[in-house]
């Protein structure tokens, strides 16, 4: 069948799987909310302090939640042999992988948008910063999935890949963290954020083009 059909089939199957394992899928989201809740408890509940920290806190928590969810991207496919079948498909692996990453983002990245207002409420983030928070989440969470996919692909064959995964992936997340949280930070004080948003968009395009290839190469190495 055609490549588009194959990619759609992958997306449909992964969404269906996520739906059947929904209890598991909610974990990163809960983790995200819980990490954000910990901050006021640790640093004190002064409104101005929390508000100043809010963009950073939200983005660090989003990064950690993304990291936690990454393992689900290829793990079960690796264990039950589906990954081998994916490799044997006559279609280009890097495109098929994009389908997997897209559905992973739909399941783990997109829900962050839904809880974002809750967090803004917790941390006293001004309402005028909400659109920017959403925009950065829309632009940056796909990047977290794309970049993270390289790391998971490299470590999926390891029994204790988790620790190494964070060592590999977190440094690569730093630019995303810097620009996304700075955009939200500026939005809270009503400053323009076009520069940050443009950079995030450019980085997203770059990630879309550049990450599938190394991910495919790494998966081939892992299946070996």
């Amino acid at each position: 069948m055609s490549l588009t059909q194959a990619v759609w089939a992958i997306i449909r199957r992964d969404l269906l799987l996520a739906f059947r394992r929904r209890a598991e899928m909610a974990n990163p989201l809960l983790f995200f909310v819980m990490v954000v809740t910990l901050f006021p408890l640790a640093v004190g509940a002064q409104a101005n302090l929390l508000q100043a920290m809010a963009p950073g806190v939200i983005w660090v928590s989003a990064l950690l939640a993304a990291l936690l969810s990454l393992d689900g991207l290829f793990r079960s496919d690796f264990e039950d042999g589906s990954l081998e079948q994916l490799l044997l498909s006559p279609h280009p692996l890097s495109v098929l992988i994009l389908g997997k990453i897209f559905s992973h983002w739909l399941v783990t990245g997109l829900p962050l948008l839904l809880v974002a207002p809750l967090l803004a409420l917790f941390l006293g983030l001004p309402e005028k910063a909400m659109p920017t928070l959403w925009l950065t989440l829309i632009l940056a969470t796909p990047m977290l999935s794309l970049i993270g996919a390289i790391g998971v692909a490299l470590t999926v064959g390891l029994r204790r890949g988790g620790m190494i995964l964070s060592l590999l992936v977190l440094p690569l997340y730093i630019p995303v963290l810097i620009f996304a949280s700075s955009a939200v930070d500026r939005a809270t004080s009503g400053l323009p954020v076009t520069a940050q948003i443009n950079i995030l968009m450019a980085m997203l395009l770059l990630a879309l083009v550049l990450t599938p290839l190394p991910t495919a190469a790494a998966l081939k190495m892992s299946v070996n």
Partner: protein
Amino acid sequence: MSIIPAPISRFFHKTASPPHFYALADKLIPWLTVLFLLLLIPGLYGGLVMAPADYQQGDSYRIIYIHVPAAWMSLFIYVLMAIMGGIALVWRIKLAEVMLISSAPIGAGFTFIALVTGSLWGKPMWGTWWVWDARLTSELILLFLYLGVTSLYGAIEDKRDAARAVSILALVGVVNIPIIHYSVEWWNTLHQGPTVSKMDKPSIHISMLIPLLLMAVAFKVYYAIAVLQAAKLQLLKREASAQWVKSLLEKPQ
């Protein structure tokens, strides 16, 4: 491979064959050591004795002669590792894999030196051991990248797979380094204002510059020696049952 003329390609394959390279390394190391000392001694003398004290920072600036070359080396070695990774992935040359993984601890060492000396230099200047200065922060992230490479290589049991994984990682890392560097610079100017970093441009006088360049070249030669030593070890590990290792063992040491 076909783009490269046959004699050149043959030359590379011969040089890159493990026994040939092993012997070549043995021949090169003494010469490189002499060259290293010829650069190091005048470099140190010029830097620690001849060069005048800085009018603002006094003698503390003399840390520059290791801090800056080490910082240069840390980037240089990572880029070199990525090139080796590319060669290893495209042409499947075992030597490139070996050079890549041999470089990692040396590069991490230089990164560590750049960090610690930066902090030791910062203390008298800023009054604290650590400032989130752009260069130090980038250097810290670079250290994480190096540690990622070494721990990934260590974690994968089959060393051929491990070399492939590390090659991919080094290439991904090298694409990210400019992005990380740029974003950190940008973040730094945003949050701190440009006054902090006197460290980047001390008023450089020619008598200060020459030892700096000597030290920079000396560090490069040191890297060549260290990487050859490490590569000899890695080659032996990877090729332990090959014929050339067996005949090497029979020769009287």
